[in-house]
């Protein structure tokens, strides 16, 4: 266990020892603080100064390409290295303090050494990328890149990575989209079978009139009828006196195209009402006019009626539901591809095998 042997491996070799010496001589307070903090901890969470210094020096050499021939193509210019006579050693001092701080933040033990070094590497790389003009600025930037900040950055990168743009993912999305749309359609129709209460238009000061509309369970008839008061709970089909067979429905109109919206009465030109209005046109030439109580019901009903007519569901709610359901479905399917990168181009399909006689024939 000869400490001198620690410095025989190059890189970084004696450079690490030079750095440690610089720290101890010129930044004595810092050095003493680091050593004392870590020397008397009983709980195995102490940061091993010697090993850290050597590894850190090696990492810095790697990051700054110390010891290699100058790279003509590389255009990284770090002004901070020109602000101090012993810039390299100062840089080391800043970084060793960062390492100590990160070690504490991560509550690391000796076995987490490499993980801490990875995090520190990321911190230094990100800070250097910001090209701080002086060493003090570097210190400030590193302080803002605490461990929790790095975790947060990693998490947001993970989230944004999920918006896969690779071709097989897009293909898969297209393949499962019809299934999801079918699910949405089912939900809309279920909701229509439960029915909703609507308000009658007009009747300025008179009592509010309600009417209720509900789809039959076999999806073949739309029942509706007047109600005296707002319903609490289920409304039985027997109470709804009128009905329209779904096969008689011709079209669904919305907004300005609705017959009840085309009337010139001032009340009916209210913009909000316009956005919630829809009508069913049915044989022979009649229309059933609705004003939905809110945007949600409007979307549900227009979607449901479109589904009954065999048309596509087009409301905003469908778009957002599709988004939610699709993203969850895709995430679930791609769980096993975690940490695996999808290639950019399809792998070439090899020549077909000469025989398809598998060893065990399962018939």
């Amino acid at each position: 266990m000869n400490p001198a042997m620690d410095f025989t491996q190059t890189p970084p070799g004696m450079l690490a020892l030079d750095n440690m010496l610089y720290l101890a001589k010129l930044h004595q307070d810092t050095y003493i603080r680091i050593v004392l903090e870590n020397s008397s901890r009983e709980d195995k969470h102490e940061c091993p100064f010697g090993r850290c210094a050597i590894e850190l020096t090696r990492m810095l050499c790697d990051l700054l390409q110390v010891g290699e021939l100058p790279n003509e193509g590389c255009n990284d210019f770090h002004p901070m290295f020109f602000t101090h006579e012993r810039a390299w050693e100062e840089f080391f001092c800043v970084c060793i303090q960062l390492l100590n701080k990160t070690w504490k933040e991560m509550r690391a033990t000796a076995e987490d050494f490499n993980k801490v070094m990875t995090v520190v590497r990321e911190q230094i790389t990100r800070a250097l990328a910001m090209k701080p003009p002086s060493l003090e600025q570097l210190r400030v930037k590193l302080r803002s890149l605490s461990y929790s900040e790095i975790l947060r950055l990693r998490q947001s990168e993970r989230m944004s990575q999920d918006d896969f743009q690779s071709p097989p993912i897009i293909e898969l999305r297209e393949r499962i989209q019809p299934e999801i749309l079918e699910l949405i359609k089912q939900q809309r129709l279920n909701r229509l079978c439960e029915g909703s209460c609507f308000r009658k238009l007009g009747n300025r000061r008179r009592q509010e009139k309600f009417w209720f509309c509900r789809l039959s369970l076999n999806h073949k008839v739309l029942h509706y009828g007047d109600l005296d008061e707002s319903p609490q709970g289920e409304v039985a089909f027997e109470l709804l006196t009128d009905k329209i067979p779904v096969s008689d429905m011709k079209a669904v109109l919305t907004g300005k195209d609705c017959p009840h919206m085309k009337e010139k009465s001032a009340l009916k030109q209210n913009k909000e009402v316009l956005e919630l209005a829809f009508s069913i046109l049915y044989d022979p030439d009649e229309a059933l006019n609705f004003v939905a109580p809110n945007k949600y019901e409007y979307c549900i009903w227009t979607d449901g009626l479109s589904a009954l007519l065999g048309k596509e569901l087009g409301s905003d709610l469908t778009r957002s539901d599709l988004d939610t359901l699709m993203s969850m479905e895709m995430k679930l399917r791609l769980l096993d591809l975690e940490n695996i990168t999808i290639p950019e181009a399809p792998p070439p399909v090899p020549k077909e095998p000469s025989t398809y006689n598998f060893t065990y024939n399962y018939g």
Partner: protein
Amino acid sequence: MAPWTKTSSERYGVVKWNFIAKAEKQLSLAVGDTVHIQESCEGWYKGYVIKNKERKGAFPANFIVLKEVIIEKRGDEEVITSVEMPLVKEVTTTLREWGTIWKQLYLQSSKKVRFTQVQRLMWDLMEWRSQLLSGTLPSDEFKELKQKVTSKIDYGNKILELDVVVRDADGNILDPERASVISLFRAHRDATAKITERIKEEQSNVQMDHSGVSARIQSSPTHSLYVFVRNFVCRIGEDSELFMSLYDPNKQTNISENYLVRWGDKGLPKDIEMLNSLKVVFTDLGNKDLNREKIYLICQIVRVGRMDLKDTPNKKWTTGLRRPFGVAVMDISDIIKGKTECDEEKQYFIPFHPVIAENDFLHALLNKVTSSRGDSGGQGTTHSFPAQMTSQQRSLR
């Protein structure tokens, strides 16, 4: 012409690109599917997609990313288990199970709340699973994360009314083939109790989220109560001593030490300088105290003076005798549990109950008062509870 040979180590993999079968004996694959591989030949594998074991066929080897497996022989069969952490595998299967249920919840519009709840649970679990797989967590955090994950899984299973998962001390699922029946039964019993407790915690966390107090209570193990005595209004005519403490009426014991205030006969504290600064902090209240059904702040008033109040003040009588005078009782269970806001300015008036006879024990009077709710006639002490402090127990190393 190479024959198809059974594969030895290449048994399990993930599809990295969609493959469409061009011949009858080929198998179509979708990206993200996991496959079991049985045989190989000339750059092709033969196997099946795990989701659909019946359909077997051939697919190109370069469309698969192989994963390491452990192969066990159980009798004639071979059992293939992936090398992934068992917890990660559990999360994956749980997420997929919940996924199908979640879609069913979507269809029923009455279950919208549950739908969003499960969605959030699933997102959390997915994020944590990514963290576990990233391999960048230090060991302390790793253990904490495992705890959080198992807790979340248990909570989700409970609210979706799925089977209880029985775990051992490390959070790994118990293997029924390796544990005895009796230990399994005991483990089941403990697990159900623990899960119900955690559910209650989660629910109370959810309900009291807006006040933020519950989170504090959960996170710190010791609490303190700060009481500021404003005034004591009582016609005694003699010096008195007030003993204030916290009291548990169910167990009929004091749960804290007494805070003594000496009050003079003129209606002011003996120590005039203390008039506006009679403050006391009851510290070291643990979670056990917080969970008591009722906590009262009691004030026992002891008169210091002559033996009998009825006797006129006369130099002949001995003074300095301590006689019971009365009690004042206030229910502070709500304040302690954080249900009512603690306001610096709000003052509480605590009514006062005198002893009936001179030979009454204060203790008996206390019991009588705590079990009844009588009127006092305007005499009592006024207090305010400016703050409830909690202290962080985590060591700052």
